[in-house]
């Protein structure tokens, strides 16, 4: 798919996510807007999936370990045809099934429930191991936050993935540099991130997490790596796409007011028309 088309879809996804969080009056837009471009590339370019056969045992899998960024994943899944876009209005509602953190049993297309940080990469390792055991050629993808990787379990999973030579596994870290309490390098520094994953036995690719072509190329490069897993470090802007949310730590988990919603919507619609 053309980069321009992907960019348009990503903007549509941001609009859906914005609507969902505004309607629910709760949810996480900052991290959703930093990861949503990567999710768009995955679901519209990279993943071998079929929304009409969402439980296909041979499909590629994706685990959103930073499960609070459900607005981004749900929006991309809706655009990809896993469920009606109207379902985004049901986000976080007591009357419906669209859970606040990604949930696999009620939201079609979600491959793993997540939300308690640090756990998704392990599940992805399990899926990748199952693929190897069964001689299947599906690939497994997992996205983490750069604050999330302070969780020790991520590094347990990183060791295991290298130990089991899981070249069918591609992780990614949404390096937006911010977490709830402030800049990641102030809360708990993870630098040098690429060196850490290399030392753990991973092939590492640094990429602009808002450059659709570069991300598609990175995921393609990962497919060619033999005998080790790949970690794509997505260098991103938290809140990307809405001027007053970009790089603002306060927009981690806050719902926009009606005025903020209108302004954000106007900005995104302008991007869509550009």
């Amino acid at each position: 798919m053309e980069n321009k088309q992907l960019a348009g879809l990503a903007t549509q996804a941001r609009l859906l996510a914005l609507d969902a969080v505004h309607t629910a009056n709760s949810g996480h837009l900052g991290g959703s807007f930093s990861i949503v471009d990567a999710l768009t590339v995955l679901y519209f370019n990279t993943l071998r999936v079929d929304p009409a056969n969402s439980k296909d045992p041979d499909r590629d899998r994706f685990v959103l370990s930073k499960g609070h960024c459900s607005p981004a994943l749900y929006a991309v899944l809706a655009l990809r045809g896993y469920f009606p876009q109207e379902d985004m209005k049901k986000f976080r509602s007591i009357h419906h099934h669209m859970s606040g953190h990604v949930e696999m049993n009620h939201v079609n297309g979600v491959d793993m429930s997540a939300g308690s940080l640090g756990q998704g990469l392990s599940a992805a390792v399990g899926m990748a191991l199952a693929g190897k055991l069964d001689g299947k050629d599906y690939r497994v993808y997992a996205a983490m936050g750069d604050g999330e990787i302070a969780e020790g379990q991520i590094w347990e999973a990183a060791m295991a993935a290298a130990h089991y030579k899981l070249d069918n596994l591609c992780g990614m870290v949404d390096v937006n540099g911010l977490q709830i309490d402030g800049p990641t390098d102030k809360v708990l520094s993870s630098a040098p991130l690429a060196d850490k994953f290399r030392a753990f036995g991973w092939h590492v690719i640094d990429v602009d997490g808002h450059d659709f072509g570069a991300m598609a190329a990175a995921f393609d490069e990962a497919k060619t790596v033999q005998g080790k897993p790949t970690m794509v470090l997505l260098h991103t802007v938290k809140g990307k796409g809405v001027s007053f949310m970009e790089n603002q730590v306060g927009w981690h988990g806050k719902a926009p007011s009606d005025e903020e919603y209108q302004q954000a919507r106007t900005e995104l619609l302008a991007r869509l028309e550009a």
Partner: protein
Amino acid sequence: MGEKIATRAAYGDSLKKYGKENPRVIVLDADLSGATYSNRFAQEVPERFLNCGIAESNMVGIAAGLATTGKIPFLHSFAMFAAGRVYDQVRNSVAYPRLNVKIVGTHAGLSVGEDGATHQCIEDIALMRVIPGMTVVNPCDAFEADAAVKAVMDYEGPCYLRIGRNPVEVVMDQIPGYHFELGKGILLREGSDVAILATGIMVQESLKATEALAAEGINARVINIHTIKPIDREIIEKAARECGAIVTSEEHNVLAGFGSAVAEVVSETCPVPVVRHGVNDVFGRSGAAQQVLDAYGVNAAGIVEAVRKALAMKK
């Protein structure tokens, strides 16, 4: 007297026996396979064994990921780590998505012995039973452990299986018509003065206690509750109604565990005195297994004492 076999030893053999035949079964351990006896499966079916190293959290997550593809993962560690260390992972990566993962906690309770309090998990039943949708099974001997392995393997859904380190007398093979069914208690001895409901290795101690009680003219009913969740409400209510006093016995903290589960049912169906026998909310300590159990009164003598308390309250 039956032969003495540790439930972990029987467990290891049964896992090998049934797991070998079921290609969906994947066995995981965290560097304790020689102690949990998951190595018996590993030696027989190496291609379906994963050693995850000393990284229990990751092991739970891997098991969850495997289960999403239709595998039946059996993961192993000491109860302290399989239920305690990874509580969040079990709750959120396994139970909440209702994944078909079997969590096997060996070396449960005080009978770990010499390793002391850090390894004597007396909270695992409580931790696991309060997770929605979790099945909790605690076999009392080698014979029952074999049946339990088969049952949890055939059951679709998350299970916690509690297994012991120390050799204990095999008694269930002597029970006429013994049949293991998840969620069904087993009546071992008729009696109407008091009902002793026991789980795990306290079943044998309860049977011993009935001899001392009989000498005092007390006719105690004994029921083996191998499945703590879902618990057999029917057999508990019947015992409460017919005996009028209940004693529960477990190798576990008396708080929030098996005794509490029974008390919940009794209070809601047929309120009668319930005395919970077990570890009285204190940590264990080092010593030979039997010495530790005796030091904390987690034995037949402790059950006899609990029965006297229950009878004193019985109207």
